[in-house]
C-alpha cells in the first residue's frame, strides 16, 4: 500500500490518498493524471493495463488501485 500511495503522491502531490474513496468522481484524478498513473504502474510492477482495466471503479481509491495491480500481477 505504501508504494501505491507513494506513486499517487508523485503523479498528484498534495492529496490525502489514504482516505479518499472517490478520486475519479471528485475529479482529483483527471484524464491526464490517470494516463500518467497507468504508465507509472505498468512500469513499476511490469504489468499490462488493458482498456478493460481502465474503468473508473479501478481508480476511485488507493485500495482499488492496489487491488487492480495485484490482480494483474497474478
Amino acid at each position, binding site marked *: 500500500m505504501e508504494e501505491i500511495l507513494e506513486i499517487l503522491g508523485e503523479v498528484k502531490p498534495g492529496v490525502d490518498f489514504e482516505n479518499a474513496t472517490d478520486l475519479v468522481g471528485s475529479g482529483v484524478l483527471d*484524464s*491526464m493524471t*490517470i494516463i500518467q498513473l497507468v504508465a507509472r504502474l505498468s512500469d513499476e510492477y511490469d504489468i499490462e493495463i488493458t482498456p478493460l482495466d481502465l474503468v473508473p471503479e479501478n481508480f476511485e481509491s488507493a485500495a482499488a488501485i492496489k487491488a487492480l495491480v495485484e490482480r494483474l500481477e497474478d
Partner: protein
Amino acid sequence: MKTIMDHLEKTMHSFPDNIAVSDEEYAYSYSELVRRSKSVGTAVAALKFRRRAVAVYMNKTPGCAAAMLGAAYSGNFYVVIDPKMPVERIKKTFSVVEPVAVITEEELAVNVPETGFQGSTFLYSEISEKAADEELLGSIRADMIDTDPLYCLFTSGSTGVPKGTVVSHANVISYTDWFIGAFGIDETFVFGSQTPFYFSMSVTDLYSSLRTGAHLAIIPKKYFSFPIKLIQYLNDKKVNAIYWVPSALCIVANLQLFKYAKPEYLKMVLFAGEVMPTKQLNYWISNFPELKYANLFGPTETTDICTYYVVNRHFEDGDSLPIGNACENCGVIVVNEDGRQCAPGEEGELYVRGSFVAGGYYNNPEKTAEAFVRNPLNTAYPEIVYKTGDIVRYNEFGELIYCGRKDFQIKHMGYRIELGEIENAAMAAEGVSSAACLYDAQKDSIILIYEGKPEKDDMCAEVKSRVPEYMVPSQYIRIKAMPHNSNGKIDRVWLKNNYKEI
C-alpha cells in the same frame, strides 16, 4: 437570414423536438435550446450593451451552449472561459476583452470576484428559466448586421497577452455553408463532441448541427481515460460522426481499443488541430475501412478550417497526410519570402482570403496589422488576407502538404528543417505512441521527446533510418506520458519550458 439565430430558429421550426445538444445529464431539444437562449438573451439585453463581450464561464454542458447563444440574442458576443483556467489568466483575458457580463454556474461563481470583474454576474440556472421578452429581442435583431461579432476566441497556450480573434455571424454562416455541403450534414447526424467550446474546432460541429437539426452529443472528458466507456457512450448516443483532435484518435489506436469495444454507428471520422500520424490513422482505417476520413486544416482566424483532404488512397506509416485543397468559397495562396506566389513544389507561407477570414484581434491593432494584411498578389484593390504562419507546398497531385509552423522552421547546420518531419519519422517507429520535437536555438540542438517502447539508442536508429543526417536529433527524452493542453493537443509550450527537468 443574417444571424446565427435566424438559422437556429429555422431549424427549430423544422425539427422542434430533435435533440440539439446533450451530455450525460441533460438533453435540450431545439425548442428548449431556443427558449433558454432567448431567456438568457433577455436578461443580458436588459444591461443595454450592444456588440460587447459577455463571458460564459461554465462547464461544457447544453446550458453552456444556451448561454453562448443567449449572449448572441442579447446583441452582444460571447467569450467562453475555460473553467480550469487559472484566475490570473482570466484576469488577463478580461483586461483585453472587457466583458460587460459574466454568465456562470453555482460551482464556479465563487471565482468571479477574484478576477476583479465589476459588472453583472448572472447564474445560468436563474436566467434561463425566465420568460423571454420577444419584443426586445426582435428590436435587437432588427438592428444587427451579419458582420457583427458572434464570439471572440482566445488562442490558448501562448505566453504574454492573450490574443482574441473576433469572428462574426457572417464568418460562421459562410464557413458552415462549406462544411454542411462538403460532408452532407443533415438532421440524421449525431456528432460526438470532443473539443471544448473555447476551442475553434467546436464551432464546426456545434454550428453545423444547429443549422441542420443534427444532435451534438457532448462527450465527458473523463471518458478519454476510460476508453471502453467512451465507446459505450458513443453507442448509447448513436454517434455517427466525430471531429476530434488527432491526440484523441491516437488514444484509441495506441490502446488497440477495437479489440475490446467497437463503435457501432460511426460513418465519418474527421480530425484537425495537429498532425494526424498515419500509423494511428491506419489503425482506424484497417478496423473500419468503410468510414469516411478527412484531414481538416486551418486556424481560429479562418473560423476553423481553410483546406481539407478526404482520404482517398493508402498511406504508409510515417507518410504525411495532405491537407488537401481550399474549402468551397475559401481562397488560399502560397507566398514565398519575396512576397511572390510559389511555384509548384516550392515551400511558402499559406495565406487565406475570403468570407471565413475573421475581422482581427480584439483590442489589438498591432497584432491585427501583422497578421491581417493586404493580399501581396493583388495591388489593384483592397483585399485583406490572413497570414497563417504555416509553411506548405503543393505535391505532385496538386494537394497542399503541411510542412510545419513558420516559427518551428529552424536553420540547423545551414539547412532549413521542419521539426514536424522529424516527428513524423519518430512516430513511424514501432511502439511509439507520441512524439514532439523541440529546437534549442542557443545550443543549436534538436531534441526529440517521445512516448513509447523504444530505448533511446533504438529511437535514434529509427529516426536515422528515415531522415537525412542533418535532421537527426542530438538529444532523446523518453517520457512516460506526453503532456496535453486543455484542447487535447500535445502541450508544446509546457515541453519547451520543462523538458530539461524530465
